[in-house]
């Protein structure tokens, strides 16, 4: 009971100190002034916190990033420990940690996580393999674009989960409908985003290639394709979040395992602590995927980074 309040108080003090250190003055009520003191200059007031499209100092950035996680966590901890809410509805961080341990020792955690990751990996890899050539072709050739853009544009607005009943009818209850759902839910967005990236390849770069003796085919594979690699990685980083959503949707509807299935089971037995545990795992894995794709970008596309 004492600890969380102390934590919050410390966070508050920290936040205050961060603000002061970096030049954010606390707001004080303005008092009417009749003095003939020099009037404020007409220029823009300097600020660190509110600088537009600019970096902030590293320590400030680190402090704010810590707050970003610590504040919600502390709030959760406090509300749960104040006994305002029945802990059947809002389990404490400690109870969730225990649930996590339980799921781990029972072997569910590893099995369910592996099942979900496998589905995302296969479904998204298939979508990636299909979307790269089609997206590049649509971006590079107006002809292919005219041929495919209308149909892709319509189908992508059909919500992927709406296909679940059909997928179950066509593909049964195994892995296939789940992988197909992830594939369908991401492939069209991948295609359109890659297509857009190709449109931004500078025309002069292609024309230079031609005047160096290059053929269209060489321009396509040796200029356009490497130019859009960073955009492709970025596209995947954004759309893999969708596939992570869809795998849970698929598992909520019909599955024998997976983190989505674990959540449904936990609901049946009113184990909210397990639901919380699964949500945290989902968030952490998603974030890890994001970070690893960023790492891939850093490792392979130094030329495109600032």
């Amino acid at each position, binding site marked *: 009971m004492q600890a969380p309040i102390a934590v919050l108080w410390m966070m508050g003090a920290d936040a205050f100190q961060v603000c002061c250190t970096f030049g954010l003055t606390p707001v004080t009520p303005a008092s009417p002034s009749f003095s003939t003191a020099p009037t404020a200059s007409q220029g823009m007031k300097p600020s660190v916190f509110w600088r537009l499209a600019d970096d902030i100092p590293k320590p400030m950035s680190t402090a704010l990033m810590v707050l970003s996680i610590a504040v919600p966590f502390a709030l959760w901890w406090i509300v749960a420990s104040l006994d305002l809410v029945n802990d059947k509805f809002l389990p404490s961080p400690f109870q969730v940690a225990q649930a996590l341990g339980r799921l781990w020792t029972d072997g569910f955690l590893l099995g369910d996580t592996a099942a979900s990751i496998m589905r995302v990996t296969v479904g998204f890899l298939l979508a990636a393999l299909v979307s790269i050539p089609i997206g590049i072709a649509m971006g590079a050739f107006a002809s292919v674009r005219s041929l495919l853009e209308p149909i892709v544009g319509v189908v992508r607005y059909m919500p992927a989960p709406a296909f679940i009943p059909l997928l179950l009818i066509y593909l049964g209850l195994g892995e296939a409908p789940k992988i197909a759902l992830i594939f369908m839910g991401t492939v069209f967005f991948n295609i359109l985003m890659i297509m857009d990236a190709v449109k931004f390849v500078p025309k002069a770069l292609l024309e230079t290639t031609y005047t160096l*003796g290059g053929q269209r085919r060489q321009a396509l594979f040796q200029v356009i394709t490497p130019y859009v690699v960073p955009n492709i990685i970025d596209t995947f980083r954004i759309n893999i979040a969708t596939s992570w959503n869809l795998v849970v949707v698929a598992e909520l509807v019909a599955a024998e395992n997976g983190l989505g299935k674990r959540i449904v089971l936990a609901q049946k037995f009113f184990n909210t602590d397990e639901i919380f545990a699964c949500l945290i795992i989902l968030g952490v894995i998603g974030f890890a995927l994001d970070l690893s794709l960023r790492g891939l970008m850093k490792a392979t596309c130094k030329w495109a980074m600032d």
Partner: protein
Amino acid sequence: MHLEINNLSKQFDTRQGPVVALDDINMHVETGEFVCVVGASGSGKSTLLRLVAGLDMPTAGEITVDGQVVTGPGSDRGMIFQSYTLYPWMTVQKNVEFGLKLQGVGPRERREMASYYLDVVGLTKFARSLPKQLSGGMKQRVAIARTLASRPKIMLMDEPFGALDVQTKETMQQFMLDLWNRTGVSILMITHDVDEAVFLSQRIYVLTAHPGTIQREVFVDLPSDRTYTIRRDRTFQDYREGIMDLLRGKAAPALVS
């Protein structure tokens, strides 16, 4: 090398109707010449160069290089654009090698040729750098090395120094002149900068605007080993002012005619 342009016209179809960009252009460039085309904006001078490069097709007339009609782009007419067209993911060395790679030259020969031309443009030290680490002038020198490495019959330059600051521009002009004297490459360059044209070239075609037609051909009778001090010469200034007057639409003094 003999570049010839005969009765060349180019018309663009716009929503407001057809626009004649170039009308009945006749000109030529011979081996080892440095020829400039000057004109105000709207004179179609960039269009002219794109037609020579084969990146656009003429409405009428024809362009020939050594008797062969130009029907598309090719490495015999290397082009330098105003925007820096280096491949951003390749090192400077790989950029210079790329034209040779496209033409199927083997890796060892590629490397040797690229190193040679990087030395010619004075950028050997930067062979392993990425384009984004270079200044504008250096990028343009890499582009020139890349084009030269492909051994073009003629190098086409579209306002290559237009985006550079005044000091860098002057350095690059001197560099270009020295390079031309050393390599003997034939050059056709487009510019709106009359001073630049007089400083660099042996012959200048002056274009009028709307539509672009050749108003005058000016022979620049100045020594080929020019330095910046030549700008103070009376003759240099006469050429410059004469061409400026032509572009203003005034009668030109006798020297230029």
